[in-house]
C-alpha cells in the first residue's frame, strides 16, 4: 500500500511542480521556494489537521472534513495523510488490545 501511495504521489507532485514552475523566473528561486512551500506546507497543514481533530477543541466534523478535502489538493499533505492512516492501521502492536488501536478512530 505504501508503494502504491508513493507511485501515485509521483504523479501528483510532478504535476504540482510543473504548475509551481510558472510562478518563478529563476531556477534557484524556484527550487528554494518550491521546496520551502512543500516542507512548510505539509508541516503546517498536518499541525492544523491534528489540532482540529483534537477532541477537547470540539471542532465540528464538517469543518474538519472541509479543511481535509481542501488540503488534500496539496500533494505533500495528501501523501503525509495517506502515510499516517497506513501507519496507525498497521502499527497496532502485539499485546495491545485491538480496541485500544480502534480508539484512534475517535481522532479522525
Amino acid at each position: 500500500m505504501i508503494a502504491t501511495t508513493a507511485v501515485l504521489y509521483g504523479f501528483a507532485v510532478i504535476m504540482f511542480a510543473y504548475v509551481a514552475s510558472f510562478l518563478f523566473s529563476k531556477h534557484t528561486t524556484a527550487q528554494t521556494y518550491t521546496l520551502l512551500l512543500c516542507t512548510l506546507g505539509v508541516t503546517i497543514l498536518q499541525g492544523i489537521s491534528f489540532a482540529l481533530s483534537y477532541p477537547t477543541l470540539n471542532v465540528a466534523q464538517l469543518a474538519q472534513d472541509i479543511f481535509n478535502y481542501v488540503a488534500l489538493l496539496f500533494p505533500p499533505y495528501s501523501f503525509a495523510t495517506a502515510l499516517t492512516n497506513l501507519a496507525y492501521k498497521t502499527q497496532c502492536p502485539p499485546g495491545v488490545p485491538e480496541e485500544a488501536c480502534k480508539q484512534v478512530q475517535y481522532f479522525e
Partner: protein
Amino acid sequence: MAHLVMNASMLQSIPVSISVMNSIRLTSAITGNPTLASMRNVSDSLPSMAINVTYDPFPLQSATVGVGIFIAAQTQSLYVASGFTIVAGMIASQIVHERELGVKSMQLMMGINRVMYWISFFIFDYVLYLIPAALSLGLLAILNPSVRYTRTVNCLASSICTVTLLLFRLSIQCRHLEGLSYP
C-alpha cells in the same frame, strides 16, 4: 503493613505523600510501643522499620495507547513526506532553468508539440523519481518491522525516518551529477 497509593502524575502530591508516610511510620511506632509518649529519647525506643517502595503503575488506558500510536504515526509520516517534498523543488528548478536558457523556446520554434514536450518531461522526471523512491521504500521496509510501540517509539521512529530522509535527500542530490556530463 501500610499501603500508600499515590498518583505519580501529580507532582504536587509529593510533599503530601511524604507527610502521609511519616504519619504512617509514627503511627506504627506508637502502636508498636505504647509507652512511647512517656519516653524522653524517642529514637532509641523506635522499633526497626523500613519503608519498602514498590513501583507498580496502573496499565495504560486504551485511549492513551491510541493517542500514542496516532502521534507516532503522524511523526513518521511527516518525516517521510518531508523527505519526498525535495522532488518538487528539483523538478520545478529544472523546468525554470530550461526556460531561462531558452531551450524551451528553441524547441518550440523547431516545431516540437507542446504536449509531447510536457509528456517527455514527465516521463523523464517520473523515472528519476521512482529510483530514489524505491530505494527509500526499500529502506523503510527493512527498518520498519523493528518499530514497535514502546516508550521510545517516537524516538526510534524519528531516528529511522530521519536516516531515510537524509539518504533520500542524498540520492536526489545525485541528480546534480548529471549536470557534469554536459560541458
